[in-house]
């Protein structure tokens, strides 16, 4: 078997784990890939270096391939996601001061988005200054989820609070320094905020939008077209890494690997929390969060076009892109379930037969249904 040299960019976040395991546990090697991982310092660098071909593949925020394909990015090149790196992994973390005020307003501390949002709305209404929240990138799952949670709780993001952008590793420090009141980010940066900055986890992505995608493996569409065998190999590598990662018996080893200096460079005890879903939410309270991070189960690696369309709906909602038939087709086209199915065919493992699925009442915390077959109605009703 010939060996293909392949460089992948990633950010220090737990959901780079499947790429890391692909290299560290030999899954990439098994498929003839000599995988090199480069840790980057910002999502902007991942985006630009992927666009110019320094990174043939990269860990990307799920909305990123859409943004590049829709022409929202500086070097806009059609970009695709043929495999997903996991569901969940995000949380909203607030400062100790804000948490105490939220608790006074009735936040029960059970991580449920609804009750936490209701309490935050009361805090915002009576606050003498605008609260400030951090997210990691403009076209990020974090930005859209935070905004969805706030808006559904009766808080208008750009009017009632301020949203600023900072890279994940800088968020706990910014919170500690008092320059932000809260943030939405992937692990381990919530747990690090709790451990080092006395912060409190207010709610989790798993409650705002259950089992929803966060990071994908992104690549330029033209590169994928020219290298179909490498793309198929990469999809199988991620699938196998996901399968291995989802076995709890491996969690201690995974936490040790991810804690390493080249990856998260954080204590294994903190890194492991998201893997088990057993989070220290602050003040010594430990909570078990079902499906906090899902690297493989529930077809986690399958790129649903309907998920791409939900992110597109949020881009429309916040005025980043105009709603049109053409744009919705570009957005859905950025996720490539066809490549996923074709790559896994030799493994004879089950993959969903449809590209779209509706997100029913239990998916979103506010009970709203997202049915991709009725996208226009959804946009008109929720995203105008």
């Amino acid at each position, binding site marked *: 078997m010939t060996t293909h040299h392949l460089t992948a960019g990633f950010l220090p976040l737990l959901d780079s784990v499947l790429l890391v395991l692909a290299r560290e546990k030999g899954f990439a090697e098994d498929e003839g890939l000599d995988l090199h991982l480069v840790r980057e310092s*910002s999502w902007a660098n991942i985006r630009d270096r992927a666009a110019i071909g320094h990174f043939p593949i990269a860990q990307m925020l799920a909305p990123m391939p859409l943004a590049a394909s829709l022409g929202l990015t*500086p*070097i806009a090149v059609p970009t695709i996601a043929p495999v997903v790196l996991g569901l969940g992994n995000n949380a909203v973390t607030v400062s100790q001061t804000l948490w105490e005020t939220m608790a006074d307003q009735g936040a029960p501390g059970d991580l449920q988005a609804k009750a936490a949002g209701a309490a935050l709305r009361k805090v915002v209404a009576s606050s003498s200054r605008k609260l400030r929240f951090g997210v990691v990138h403009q076209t990020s799952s974090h930005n859209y989820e935070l905004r969805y949670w706030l808006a559904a709780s009766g808080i208008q993001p750009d009017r009632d609070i301020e949203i600023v*952008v*900072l890279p994940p590793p800088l968020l706990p420090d910014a919170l500690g320094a008092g320059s932000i009141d809260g943030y939405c980010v992937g692990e381990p940066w919530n747990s690090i905020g709790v451990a080092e900055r006395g912060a409190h986890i207010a709610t989790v992505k798993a409650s705002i939008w259950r089992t929803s995608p966060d990071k994908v493996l992104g690549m330029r569409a033209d590169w994928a077209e020219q290298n179909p065998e490498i793309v198929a190999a990469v999809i199988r590598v991620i699938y196998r890494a996901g399968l291995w990662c989802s076995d709890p018996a491996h969690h201690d080893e995974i936490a040790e690997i991810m804690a390493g200096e080249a990856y998260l460079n954080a204590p294994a005890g903190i890194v492991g929390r998201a893997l088990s879903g057993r989070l220290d939410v602050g003040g010594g309270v430990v909570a078990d969060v079902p499906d906090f991070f899902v690297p493989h189960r529930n077809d986690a690696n399958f790129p649903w076009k309907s998920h791409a369309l939900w992110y597109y709906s949020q881009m429309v909602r916040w005025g980043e892109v105009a709603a049109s038939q053409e744009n919705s087709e570009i957005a859905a086209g950025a996720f490539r379930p066809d490549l996923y199915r074709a790559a896994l065919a030799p493994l004879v493992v089950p993959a969903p037969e449809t590209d779209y699925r509706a997100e029913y009442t239990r998916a979103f915390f506010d009970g709203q249904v997202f049915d991709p077959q009725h996208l226009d109605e959804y946009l008109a009703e929720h995203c105008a």
Partner: protein
Amino acid sequence: MTHPDLSILIIDENRIRASIIEEGLREAGHLRVAVLHDVNEVGRTIEAVVPDVIVIDLENPKRDTLEHFFSLSRAVKRPIAMFVDRSDGASIEKAVEAGVSAYVVDGLRKERVKPILDMAVSRFNAFSKLARELEQARSELEDRKLIDQAKGILMRTRGLGEAEAYALLRSTAMNKNRRIVEIAQSLVTAADLLGP
């Protein structure tokens, strides 16, 4: 010299590199050059400076923050595009390899901006070369210190002359297929552990 009226903002946490670029731009006839070391100050500065071109190092983790400031800013009214021309792949790659990124107010003609970016790229490269040479000189100096220490240990403990001590280090390194400085390091560490 042809278009000295563009307003240019340099954002670089590395003060020396920032001043090298600033100097280059001034030499090229650009008089409206502002320098910032912290992205957080952009929000204030951008309103006063109203930059046409913004140069930032790629290692700055706050590029996302900066882009978000642009999207909120009233001073930078038109959308900002990165690099000179999206279609100019070669110059984009050169810039990224040098570790520099530039944002340009949409609508500026390519020929007005390209010299600025080229200047930034060449100054970034010159700075990296300088930093590499400095690092090399520093590590050579440290290597020499280590080897001198190791020689001293051998001279003391085995009663060798300086040339003999060096020859022993060199032959050991050759036999073990390692660098002399590595052998010297092992010897110094071992001597430290064994005490005086």
